[in-house]
């Protein structure tokens, strides 16, 4: 056990955990931020995707001790009021089915759009292929990312 300081969604928090604990479980079990989902625990499905200094990472295999001063952003912190262009595009195209994978999908997509504001289908496929969706919402996700890219470029 060790007291670890983290910057989560712009706030500084202190948790007292085993330093090897993956960030996923720190978020879910200790900080009550359950928007980040557990799907595989092996960096295979993307359900647990968060941003570390703006880059998409799988929180299920990221030990909390490795975070250091890097800012963590979760689905709860990606926008104050749920109006990130991706969240709006997801709403507009009614992407979700069961919805379980979608927080992770949005976090992966957000980091893609930051790096590449006008992604092609191929860019999207490459950036998103680490995120599984058993419900099969892939076609709408692709469309929603294009839509968000368009909205963003108009801003």
């Amino acid at each position, binding site marked *: 056990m060790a007291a670890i300081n983290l910057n989560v969604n712009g706030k500084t928090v202190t948790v007292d*955990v085993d330093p090897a604990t993956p960030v996923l479980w720190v978020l879910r*079990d200790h900080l009550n931020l359950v928007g980040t989902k557990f799907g595989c625990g092996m960096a295979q499905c993307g359900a647990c995707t968060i941003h570390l200094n703006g880059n998409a990472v799988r929180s299920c295999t990221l030990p909390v001790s490795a975070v250091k001063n890097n800012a963590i952003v979760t689905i*709860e912190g990606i926008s104050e009021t*749920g109006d990130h262009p991706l969240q709006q595009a997801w*709403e507009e195209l009614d992407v979700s089915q069961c919805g379980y*994978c979608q927080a992770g999908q949005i976090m992966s997509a957000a980091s893609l759009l930051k790096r590449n504001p006008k992604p092609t289908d191929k860019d999207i496929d490459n950036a998103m292929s680490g995120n599984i969706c058993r419900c099969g*919402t892939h076609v709408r996700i692709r469309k929603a990312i294009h839509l968000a890219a368009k909205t963003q470029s108009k801003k």
Partner: protein
Amino acid sequence: MENFKTNNSRRAFLKSSLLAGGGLMISFSGLAKFSLDGKINAADLPGEWYELTGYIKITQDNIIKIFNPNPEFGQNVMTSLPMIVAEELDVDWKKVVVEMGPHDNVKLGPQFTGGSNSVRMYWKPLRDAGAAARNMIITAAAQTWNVPAEEITTKAGMLYHEKTGKSGTYGEFASKASAIPIPKEVKLKDVKDFNVVRHSQKNVEGVKIVTGKPLFGLDYTQEGTLIAMIEHPPAFGMKVKSFDAAETLKMPGIKDVFTLKLYEDGYEQAGFDTRTFNDLLVVVGATTWEVMNARKKLKVTWEPKGDTKDKMAGRGGSREVLVPGALESTATHFAKMKEYAAKPAQLLRKDGDPETAFKNAAKVIERTYNAPFLAHNCMEPMNCFAHVADDKALIVGPHQAASWIEPTLSKVLNLPADKIDMQITRMGGGFGLRAYGHTFVEAAIISKKVKAPVKLMYTREDDMTYGIYRPMYTATYRAAFDANKNLIAFHVKGGGIPENPIHANRFPAGAVDNYLAEGWEIPSNITIGAFRAPRSNFNAAAEQSFLDEVAEVMGKDPIEFRLELLKRAKENPVGKNNEYDADRYAEVLRLVKEKSGWSDAANKQYSRGVAAYFCHNSYAAHVVDVVKKDGQPFVERVTSVVDCGIVINPDAATNMVQGAVVDGIGNALYGEQTFKEGVPEKNNFTRYRMIRHREAPKKIDVHFVQNDINPTGLGEPPFPPIFAAVANALYKSEKKRFYNQPFSAEFQKKA
């Protein structure tokens, strides 16, 4: 907005609902302990709620709440079912608050999600409920205004009496209406007057999903909840012999390690009480990570379980089912299936004289199709919260059928059902798996034992290796032709481990003079269960691939060939009990031909495959267009047509069909669970291949047959035929037939 004039807290609510919902509708979870949006709580809603019919509550200020009765697992019933109520109630959908209903079969009906039945079974009751409540409000207004009820009209939650110029909100009369007995008979709207149903409405939980609100079973917790995990045997056919938990107990956060029996000896299992492993080795601790880690330190000796007998409840008393103890492997499964396929089987249906027809045929073709066990792989692993005290229990979790599991809990916990509070959460997928109750029983008995609230967590490995798989299937199809290449006889003989897949009365039964269907089963200790369109998901794959070859032998276009058979089935059906409606079946084929531009020269660049199927009372057809991408076949485009009667929520229904298409392509190409000495060889997505974004089609066009038939299933029907449409397109692309799922194994070998 004018309806909400007073009360500051209500204004605050509206403001935040607009913020959170982007001006859209907002829903509330019925689970009191969920912290919802952080700002809004159902309890903060103003005024007193007046209940009408069990499905509807209205405040004096005309806030209208509709309860979704049925569990939501992605099929969007949370939106579509309340839409049906709102339609007949005649309210403005945008002002409706939707809440997940409590588990209460008396008030809210059967509350079971599965068999593509949600809309079908609730269509009439929900229309009745909406219409009855409207009727009660009108009666209350008529009494107050002292005018005849027949002269009162309604619109968007308002009442009007033209002659006197009187008007009012539903809310003004809600209190009075709630005291009026529910009418026995009500008039329903004419389908052509619908203005909520048949109009696309957004998912009422869409905003919550994309902002990461706690909605799912996995997200539920309470103060003081312990985490539990079960170490189950590494192989089917094994059980725990002894264990040493010394190291585990030394780990931080660990409270206890013990074994428990899921069901006591002699327990009579109900249909969905499947038990894969009856002896549970349980680790309980403070946090998920601590329990996960400590579990790894267990030293367990496993032993073969040997043959066992399960006592199963059935119609007309209980029966015993022998569960063989031997450790099973995929290689031996194949060998055994071959052996059984050669033996005489159970006759399922016979028309005409198939034996003679085959004997005298000018040509016979015979093809065998195989499909593996499949894991459900719901993205939310199995989990359940339970707090069991001496005299009551609270059970919260993702379940397709609380009503089926509650009687089991009542028996196992020895508590009357009314002392068990079961709450239904949103599910991160279900696909049939969440109709089975073992997770709930496990959580409950663990909580009872440790006398604390417990959250039972399955890791992905636990989830994928636990069983309740789609069974392994095989079927051999034969077709006989006369000298003019007319189809004169059709024979299917199918079997599976441990279940026979054949639907003997489905197409092409009824369309061929001489028809024979047979089935057989091989018992196994690998547990199986419903998986999106059970049995159909294999039958369609095999039969619709075979029909493609039959059409080819006859030199006919595969769509025209099917239409000819359906014409025969309609005009002069063979035999009895044909399950399908030949006209509706033919219509989806005709429409998919048109919409896909099946005969257009412009589409010649694609390797195209077609398939259609009837199941769960609905009809679906797909045309799949394959191209080569990086040297590999790739499904680039799909055109789908579905006839499920009236479509409640068109855009959401389209999403569901698109999802079934992607899910079907993924399972057809990659899905597979295999075994070695009882050990499931795939235990996480490292080895269990799921379809990825780069493998999903670029475009899926969905069309619905427009008719006024009462709605039927949608979650399952589009799934089975996609397997065969893919196989038939792959044939065109790869110049060879694909008989064995997963198909990608074959073209990847080549690559």
